[in-house]
C-alpha cells in the first residue's frame, strides 16, 4: 500500500465527519428556529389580542385618540389579522386621522377590492371628507361586496346607511331606488319592513308605504306601530279619512298612546280643513279655502311683511264675502294661498304642519 493512502482516506473521513456535524448543526438550528418562531408568534398574537380588546374598549368609551395608539400596536404586531386593521381604521376615522385611515383602507382594498367592511369604512371616510359621490360608490361596493358572517344583514345595514346619506342629500329618486330592493330582502322582519315603509314616505312614495303597512297588518292586526305608520302614509297621500281610521285603530290597540292621539287630532282637523272632497258644498269649500288662505297669509307674514302677494291676500280676506260661493272663487283663494306658501318657503322654516300637508296635497 502506498504511504499516501491513509492520508487520502483520512481526508475523506474528515470530510464525512464535517458533513455529519454540519447536518447535525443544521437540524439543531432548524429545531431552535422553529421553536423560537412559534413561541414568538404565540406571544405576539396574545399581546396583539390584548391590545385589540383594550383598544376596542377605549373606542367604545369614545376615547378615539387613545384607542388609535393601542390598536396600532395590535395591528403592528399582527399585520395579517384583518380585524385589527379594520378596528384601527374605525378608530382613525373617529379620531379624524382621515389620511392615515384612507391609506390603511386603500391597502386592504388593493389586496381585496370586494371586501365589504373595508368598502363600508371607506364610504364613511369619504362622507367625513365630504366626497359624497365617492362615498356612494364605496357604499355600492360594500353592498355588493363580500362579508364574513351574516352577509345579508350587513348588506341591509349598509344600504340603510346609504339611504340615510341620500336622504340628507335630498336625493329622493336615488333613495327610492335603494329602498325598493330592501323590501324583498327584509320580508319576515316587521321591524325592518316598518323602517322601509317609512323610507318610502320620505322618498315620496307613500302609496308603496301603505301597501307595506297593509301587508304587515294582515300578519298582525294588533301592530300599533304599523297603524300609526299607515296613518302617516295616508296623511302624506292626502287621504285624511283613512289616516283618521288608522290612528283610531292604533288607539284601540293602546288607548294610552298619546302620540297616536295627537296624530288622530291632526288627521281630524285635516279632514275638517281639506277643501278637495267632492261631496263638499261650494259654500263649505269656499269657507275652507278662506281658512287656508288666512293661514298661508299668517305664515307668510311671520317672515315677510311686504309684497304684492301679501296685499292681494289681505284684500281677499278683508273683502266681505257675497254669495254665490262658487267653486271657482274657492279655487282662486286656494291658488293665492299656494303662491303665498311657495313664496314663503324660500325664506322661512316650515311652520304649521296642517298647512304644510294641505299645500302638499293641493300641489299633487
Amino acid at each position, binding site marked *: 500500500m502506498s504511504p499516501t*493512502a491513509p492520508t487520502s482516506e483520512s481526508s*475523506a473521513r474528515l*470530510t464525512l465527519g*464535517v458533513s455529519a456535524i454540519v447536518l447535525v448543526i443544521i437540524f439543531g438550528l432548524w429545531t431552535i428556529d422553529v421553536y423560537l*418562531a412559534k*413561541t*414568538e408568534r404565540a*406571544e405576539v398574537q396574545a399581546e396583539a389580542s390584548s391590545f385589540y380588546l383594550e383598544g376596542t374598549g377605549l373606542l367604545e368609551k369614545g376615547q378615539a385618540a387613545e384607542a388609535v395608539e393601542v390598536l396600532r400596536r395590535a395591528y403592528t404586531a399582527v399585520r*395579517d389579522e384583518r380585524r385589527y386593521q379594520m378596528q384601527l381604521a374605525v378608530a382613525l376615522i373617529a379620531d379624524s386621522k382621515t389620511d392615515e385611515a384612507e*391609506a390603511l383602507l386603500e391597502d386592504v382594498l388593493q389586496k381585496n377590492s370586494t371586501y365589504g367592511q373595508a368598502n363600508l369604512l371607506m364610504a364613511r371616510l369619504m362622507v367625513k371628507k365630504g366626497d359624497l359621490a365617492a362615498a356612494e360608490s364605496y357604499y355600492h361596493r360594500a353592498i355588493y361586496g363580500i362579508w364574513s358572517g351574516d352577509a345579508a344583514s350587513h348588506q341591509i345595514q349598509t344600504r340603510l346607511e346609504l339611504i340615510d346619506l341620500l336622504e340628507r342629500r335630498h336625493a329622493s329618486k336615488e333613495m327610492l331606488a335603494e329602498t325598493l330592493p330592501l323590501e324583498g330582502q327584509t320580508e319576515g322582519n316587521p321591524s325592518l319592513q316598518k323602517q322601509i315603509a317609512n323610507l318610502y314616505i320620505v322618498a315620496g312614495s307613500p302609496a308603496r308605504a301603505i301597501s307595506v303597512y297593509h301587508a304587515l297588518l294582515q300578519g298582525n292586526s294588533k301592530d300599533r306601530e304599523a297603524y300609526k305608520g299607515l296613518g302617516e302614509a295616508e296623511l302624506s297621500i292626502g287621504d285624511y279619512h283613512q289616516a283618521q281610521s288608522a290612528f283610531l285603530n292604533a288607539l284601540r290597540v293602546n288607548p294610552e298612546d298619546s302620540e297616536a292621539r295627537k296624530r288622530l287630532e291632526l288627521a281630524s282637523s285635516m279632514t275638517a280643513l281639506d277643501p278637495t272632497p267632492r261631496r263638499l258644498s261650494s259654500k263649505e269649500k269656499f269657507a275652507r279655502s278662506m281658512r287656508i288662505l288666512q293661514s298661508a297669509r299668517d305664515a307668510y307674514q311671520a317672515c315677510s311683511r311686504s309684497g304684492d302677494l301679501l296685499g292681494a291676500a289681505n284684500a281677499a280676506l278683508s273683502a266681505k264675502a257675497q254669495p254665490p260661493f262658487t267653486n271657482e272663487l274657492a279655487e282662486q283663494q286656494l291658488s293665492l294661498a299656494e303662491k303665498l306658501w311657495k313664496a314663503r318657503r324660500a325664506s322661512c322654516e316650515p311652520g304649521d304642519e296642517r298647512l304644510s300637508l294641505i299645500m302638499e296635497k293641493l300641489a299633487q
Partner: protein
Amino acid sequence: MTQSPPKGKFLGWIERFRNREDQLVILLSLVIGVLVGLVVVAFILLTGRLAARMYPPGSAAWRRVLLPVTGALSTGYLLYRYFPNARGSGIPQTKFAIFIDNGYISLKTVLGKFFLCSASLASGIALGREGPSVQVGAGIASVLGRRLGISTENVKALLPMGCSAALAAAFNTPIAAVLFSLEEILGDMHAPVLGSVVISAATSWMVLHLVLGDEPLFHVPAYHLVSPFEFLIYAVLGVVGGLGSVCFVKLLLKIRVLFKKLPASTGWLQPAAGGLLVGLLGWYMPEVLGVGYGYVDRVLTGDFPLKTVAILAVLKIIATASCYSSGNAGGIFGPSLFIGAMIGGSVGSVAHHFFPAITANPGAYALVGMGTAFAGIIRTPMTSVIMIFELTRDYSIIVPLMISNLISFFISQRLQREPIYEALALQEGVYLPTGESREELSGTRVGQVMQIRPELLPLEMDLGAARRRLQEANRNAWPVGSGERLYGIVAARQIEGVRDPSVKFLRHIVELDGKYPYVHPDHPLSLALERMGAAGIDTIPVVSRADIRRIYGVVTLPSVLAAYGVTEEMAAAGSKHQA
C-alpha cells in the same frame, strides 16, 4: 508513486468529490446559505424577543437608562477580554479577512459576535444587526471551508457567499444582498463567485421564508407619484439626505478618534459611555433605543409628526455615532436606514404641509429617504436602489429613488472622501483596496515579481557605506529599516546632495514620517512602475495592507521590465533611440 484509492466506494466517491474543489464550492454555497439563513433567523428572533423582554410596553423610564449602560458594560468587558474581533459592525472586519487574513475568521469571533451583539442590541444600544450578520455569515463560511481543508483561495471565495446569505436573510432582500457583497465587500461586480453568491443568497432567503413566513421587514404602503413636481422634492431630499449622511459619518469618525486616544486599558469601559448616552437619549425619546425598525414602519405610514421625525433623525445620528465609536457590538447598516427614514419623513412632512395637493404622504418620502441615507453613508448606490425596490416591489419608485440616491451619493463623495468602511479601516491603520484600485487589480501582481525579505539598510549606516551599497547593487534607492520593519527609503540623489559635514548617517536624511512610496502585494505591476516613476526611484518597497511599516519585499525596475518581457538593455536602447 501512485496514490491508491481509499477503502470503500462511498469514501472513494467523497474523496473524488472533495478533490474537485470547484464543484465542492458550489455545494458549499448551498450549505452556507442554509446554515447562515438559520443562524440569522435565530439572531433576528433572539434580538427581537430579548428586546421585548427588556422593554415591555409601559415599562419604567429608568430601565431605558440602566439597561443600555448595563448591556454595554457587560458586553464591553467580554469584547475587551475575550472577543476583540467581535467589536463594531463586522463589515470592515469581513473585508480585512478577505483582503488581509486569507479568509480567516475564527469560530470564537463568530460566537462572540452572535451572542454579544444579541445582548447589546437587546439592551437598547442604537446599532443594527445586519453588519454583524454579515460577519457571522462570512465567519461560518470561513470556518466551514477551513474545517473541510479546502484551499485558501477557495476559503476566501466562500466569504462573499456567507455575506450575501446573511444579508438576504437579515434584510429579506436577496438581490440587494448579492449586489452588496459584490459592490461593497468584494468591490467587483464581475467577480467569478457571482453564481455561488446568488445561490447562497437565494437559499438563505428561502430558509427565512420557511421559518418566518412571508412577513416583510418593513410594511410599505402603496407608492404613488402624485405629480412630476415631486421629482424636485426628491432632489431636495437627496441634498438633505446627503448632508445628513456626511454629518453622521464625520461625527462617527471624529468621536472614534477621541475614543482611540484614550488609554487602551479603558477599552472595556468605553462602550458604557455610548450606552449611557443612548440611555439618556432614550429617557427623553424611547424610539432612539435599539434597532428601531418598528418606528421606521410607523414613519413609512406617515404616522409621526414632523417635530418627532426631525428630532429622531438628529438623536439617532448622535446615538449611533457614539455607540459605534465607543466600541459596542453592532452595525450602522440598520441605523442608516432609520436615519434616512426620519430625514425623508421630515422632508416629506414639510413638502406635504406646503403643497398637499401635489405631494404624496410623508411615508413615501421616508421610504425614498431610507435609500438616500444608505447611498450617502454606505456609498453603495446600486445596492440602495435595488434594496428599496425589493422592499416596495413597486417599479414606479425607481426614478425618484435614483434621483435622490445619486444626489446624496454625489454630495457624500464630495464632502467625505473615504467611504465609511474604508475610513474606519484607515483609522485602524489598514489600507483596504479602494474602488479604483480594485479595478487595477488585474494582470501580473507585485507579489508575483517582488524580491522577498531584502536586506534593509540600517538607520545607523554611514552615508559613504550606503552610497557604496547602492552602487554595488546598481540601484538608485533602497529601503531603510531593520528586520521586517521599514522606516523609509533612501535615494542616491539624497546622499549626493548632502553638503553638511555633520550629516553622516542615514537617520539624518531618511524621512521617518511614513510618507514614502510603496505598493502592496496585490497591486498590479503597472502601479509599481507608475509610483517608481513619480518618485524618481528604481526600487520600491512592498508592504502589508494591515501595516505599511511591515515590509514583505522590494520590486525593482529590472524585475518589472523582465515581467513585461523587456530587458534593461532593450529599455536603454529604446531610450537612446527616442533621444
